[in-house]
């Protein structure tokens, strides 16, 4: 009896699938793409536990267990790069993360629509440029003969070597990143603000609240969940953020202070004598740490009473 219902169920499923055969054919190209270019590389992470032999390929290279990791954790440059990554990206949370929120709060208060639109357009444009372009522009204005130094000397100051200074490198990262993408992130916050119930503001006006009070007690709490999601994502990316920027902005003088984990991986993979197993081991380690950070941040935000990222 049971067998026949199972058989009938299978038959029914088969008929359902057969009816949709045209749809399945539509899925084939993308699924094949995913298998080859997404899933095989994921399988390729097993290289971290193998010794890569070019003639044997990813699949048939011999397993070595945690052998690679023995060397990874003995390389001081690796450990330094982790520390540097954490310091730089923690700095981003302090100096970079609040800026788009401030911009959004300010622009939200502007009541002239045309001005608002112009400002939005100007702010968002740099987001669509690659870091190669943005870095080129920054190198142009910040070099010793550039625009910024021209302004400094017009104001009677001494020219500053912005690009070659190891001390100024981190501020340079935070400011240029804000220059490029604060406007784009601002749009996300503005969208969230547009969703706040206007009745709250009306009630506040009746209660005699000032605009700053409304900003603080209504607008900011109104975008709290958006802030949290973006903060979680930022923390979750702590190990991967900033390669494009640092790769394009650093030069031999600042290379050392900018060697975050991704720069380290790039260097040991493609510039030094290539040991693909070693660098895969490093990048697998990076992914795992990232994943842990993301989950911890999500857990913490839940403990603090919000919905978290995977709600």
């Amino acid at each position: 009896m049971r067998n026949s219902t199972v058989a009938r169920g299978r038959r029914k499923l088969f008929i359902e699938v057969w009816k949709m055969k045209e749809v399945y054919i539509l899925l084939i190209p993308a699924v094949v793409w995913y298998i080859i270019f997404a899933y095989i590389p994921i399988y390729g992470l097993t290289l971290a536990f193998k010794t890569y032999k070019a003639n044997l390929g990813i699949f048939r290279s011999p397993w070595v267990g945690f052998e690679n990791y023995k060397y990874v954790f003995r390389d001081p440059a690796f450990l330094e790069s982790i520390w540097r990554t954490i310091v730089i990206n923690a700095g981003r949370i302090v100096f970079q993360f609040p800026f788009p929120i401030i911009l959004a709060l300010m622009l939200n208060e502007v009541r002239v629509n045309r001005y608002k639109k112009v400002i939005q357009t100007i702010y968002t444009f740099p987001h669509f440029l690659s870091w190669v372009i943005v870095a080129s522009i920054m190198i142009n204005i910040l070099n010793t003969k550039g625009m910024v130094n021209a302004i400094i000397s017009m104001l009677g100051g001494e020219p500053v070597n912005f690009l070659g200074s190891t001390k100024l490198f981190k501020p340079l990262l935070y400011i240029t990143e804000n220059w490029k993408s604060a406007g784009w992130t601002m749009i996300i916050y503005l969208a969230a603000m547009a969703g706040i119930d206007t009745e709250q503001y009306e009630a506040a006006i009746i209660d005699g609240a000032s605009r700053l009070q409304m900003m603080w007690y209504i607008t900011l709490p109104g975008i709290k969940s958006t802030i949290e999601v973006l903060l979680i994502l930022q923390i979750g990316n702590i190990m991967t953020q900033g390669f494009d920027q640092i790769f394009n902005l650093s030069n031999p003088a600042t290379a050392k202070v900018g060697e975050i984990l991704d720069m380290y991986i790039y260097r040991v993979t493609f510039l030094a004598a290539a040991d693909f197993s070693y660098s895969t081991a490093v990048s697998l380690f990076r992914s795992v740490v990232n994943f842990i950070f993301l989950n911890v941040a999500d857990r913490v935000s839940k403990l603090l009473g919000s919905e978290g990222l995977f709600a």
Partner: protein
Amino acid sequence: MAASKGKGLGKRIETLDVVLLIFLTFWAIVIILPFLNVIGISFASEKEYYNSMLVLIPKEATLENYKALIRDGRIWIGYRTTLLLVLIGVSLNMFLTTSMAYGLSRPNLPFRRFFVYFIVFTMMFNGGIIPLYLLMKQLNLINTLWSVILATGLNSFYLIIMRNYFLSLPQSLVESAKLDGAREWRIMVSVILPISMPIIATLTLFYAVDRWNEWFLAMIFIRKRELLTLQLALRSIVMESQGSEHFSASQTELKKFSQGMKMAAVLMTMVPIMCVFPFLQKYFVKGILIGAIKG
């Protein structure tokens, strides 16, 4: 009392408004000035650059820098490669994205959830650059444009945006087409795609900008000068050691003002983005709204 209520805006201008105006305008200037500087220098002569440090509008505009850039040749190689990349790449992007997004938007498709997880999994885990590089090597695609085109074949995030768009369309359209005897492909091509032009245009633009900005994968996969992408051409022009103009002066007939040429290259790399930006602008707020929810 009544006079202070002000006109036009319905509310009076407070100190806060002035502060906002000043700050927001200041940041807008901070963003615009570097661009003006780039444009200015690209049309300036070497003499002018060294005499006045803050070049915004050159007094004697010249095309010398652009001529030098064209003579240099790298920018053309870049344009050719990148145009090919955009043309072939975006076609493939849209083909893969649209077909799968449509398939996954059909409500009574068995194993639909499985396929969605199949995609979402790759958004959280990926092999990273090294396994991808070795895969390309094994497929013999290193040093060909196909390595970059195939590696960036599809963007899972865009795929999900498109699927959500298809899901938001009224199902009754599909049902009535079915009653008229149309089959799935027919429905997709003649019913769904024509009314999905907004999302198709949006994603085409997004993919086009992504392909236009391609440099990292190209740098890793393609080590051939003839296949330099535009961004890498720009990089190689700009990163040439500062002050090299003094050394290259020995080749007198090729004497060039390198800072001017560099800025001309920046501008030429940027112009296409500036052209599509008004369209991007039109669509991206919608896109980011979905993006803000999904992360």
